[in-house]
């Protein structure tokens, strides 16, 4: 059973370690607005900020390039930092990059590795809580947007999305629609029609991949909510 909870709601009368929940008097309470699954004891945020986790893919903009480091704007309360030994190419202020999170250090800085410069194109910002919906189950949503618009797209878990080439305006419109209607069902079909994507061979995706992806993102959960 899944239900929408708000801050202060009792999740379970046992003390459990659940992300975005707190334990008081040996009971567990939500601190956010989210979907709580009582069987899995999981809480999926409906709104919220991005918490950096190791290996997260992020998109950012180089803010400042100093001697051995680059600071990166990430659409988060934290700044990104690239230490030169992790990067091969020279980056300058204003460059768009894709990178992976190495760690969140004690000073609240996100250390990034494997930076790649994203040449040209543009970056748009969405709510980090909508990223999973934009990717879609087994990446179906983003795949059909890419194929339908012929736009190259990199989705950062931090809510920044880089786009280049193809029908970029249509791609942005499709992504905005996904964010606006994230909680509705039948969105994959709607977006498919919008971008004129070739029919996705959804059914051919192996059972294994599908199950794995489903546990990782919340698209299915949101669909079933209605």
């Amino acid at each position: 059973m899944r239900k929408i909870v708000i801050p202060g709601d009792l999740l379970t009368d046992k003390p459990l370690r659940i992300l975005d929940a707190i334990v008081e008097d040996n009971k567990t309470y939500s601190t956010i607005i989210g979907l709580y699954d009582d069987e899995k004891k999981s809480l999926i945020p409906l709104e919220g900020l991005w918490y950096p986790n190791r290996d997260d893919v992020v998109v950012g903009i180089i803010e400042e390039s100093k001697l051995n480091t680059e600071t990166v704007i990430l659409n988060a309360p934290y700044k990104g930092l690239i230490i030169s030994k992790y990067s091969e190419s020279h980056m300058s202020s204003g460059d768009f990059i894709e990178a992976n999170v190495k760690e969140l250090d004690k000073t609240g800085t996100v250390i990034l590795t494997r930076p790649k410069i994203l040449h040209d194109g543009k970056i748009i910002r969405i709510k980090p809580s909508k990223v999973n919906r934009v990717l879609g189950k087994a990446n179906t949503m983003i795949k059909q947007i890419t194929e339908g618009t012929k736009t190259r797209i990199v989705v950062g878990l931090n809510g920044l999305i880089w786009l280049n080439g193809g029908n970029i305006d249509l791609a942005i419109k499709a992504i905005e629609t996904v964010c606006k209607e994230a909680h509705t069902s039948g969105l994959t079909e709607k977006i498919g029609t919008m971008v004129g994507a070739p029919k996705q061979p959804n059914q051919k995706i192996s059972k294994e991949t599908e199950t794995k992806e489903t546990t990782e993102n919340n698209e299915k959960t949101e669909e079933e909510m209605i």
Partner: protein
Amino acid sequence: MKGNIELIKDGKRLDGRLPGDLRDIKIKTNVVKNAQGSAYIEWGNNKIIAAIHGPNEALPRHTANPNKAVVKCRYMMAPFSSSEEHGRSGMNRRAVEISKVTGEVFENVILLDQFPGTEISIYIEVIQSDGGTRAAGITCAAVALAASGIPIKDLPFSVSAGKVGETVILDLNKIEDNYSDADMPVAVLPRTKEVVLLQMDGSLTKKQYTDAMALILESGKKISKIQRDALISQYSQ
């Protein structure tokens, strides 16, 4: 009773409410596009917008706390918000004090240690006022905060109670506030019933204080329900 206005007649107040009645309350979320979270409340004739920005890097740097987020709160009344004359623009002493005690309510509930070195800004703009704006503002800002996704340990509500003659009444409007014998705005965490805002002036016996608190707690159930519905309705069609 001060003044010469009869605020309660045949057990009913000027606007027809019984002593323990709330005014009508409506809340809508996501009204300010550039904010991280926002809400709009109509509480009787009060109209208030609350918006949350951040967490952002705390600026200027010396205001930052390396262990937790700092809360910056601003409550302000628009110069055209009152039915009387044009108000002075800018922050007066009253607004400075309300901003301070309101900010302290939210320092209590936000899980500040999750965002070291950052600042969270809470803006409460009263665009029409009819008494009880600080309580309505806190109730509204709590919804804006929940809508922003910033983790909070509970969703506070706020309302005031007071006294006309010897009758304890809930949720004073402007005219009642002007002529009442006591006014006591309170904010409460509904789960634990902890009091996170308390102000009072006038005169209350211990018994009247207890009665006023009982009215506040009872009405809190209704206010909390309205807050919950506003938050959840944005996810249903």
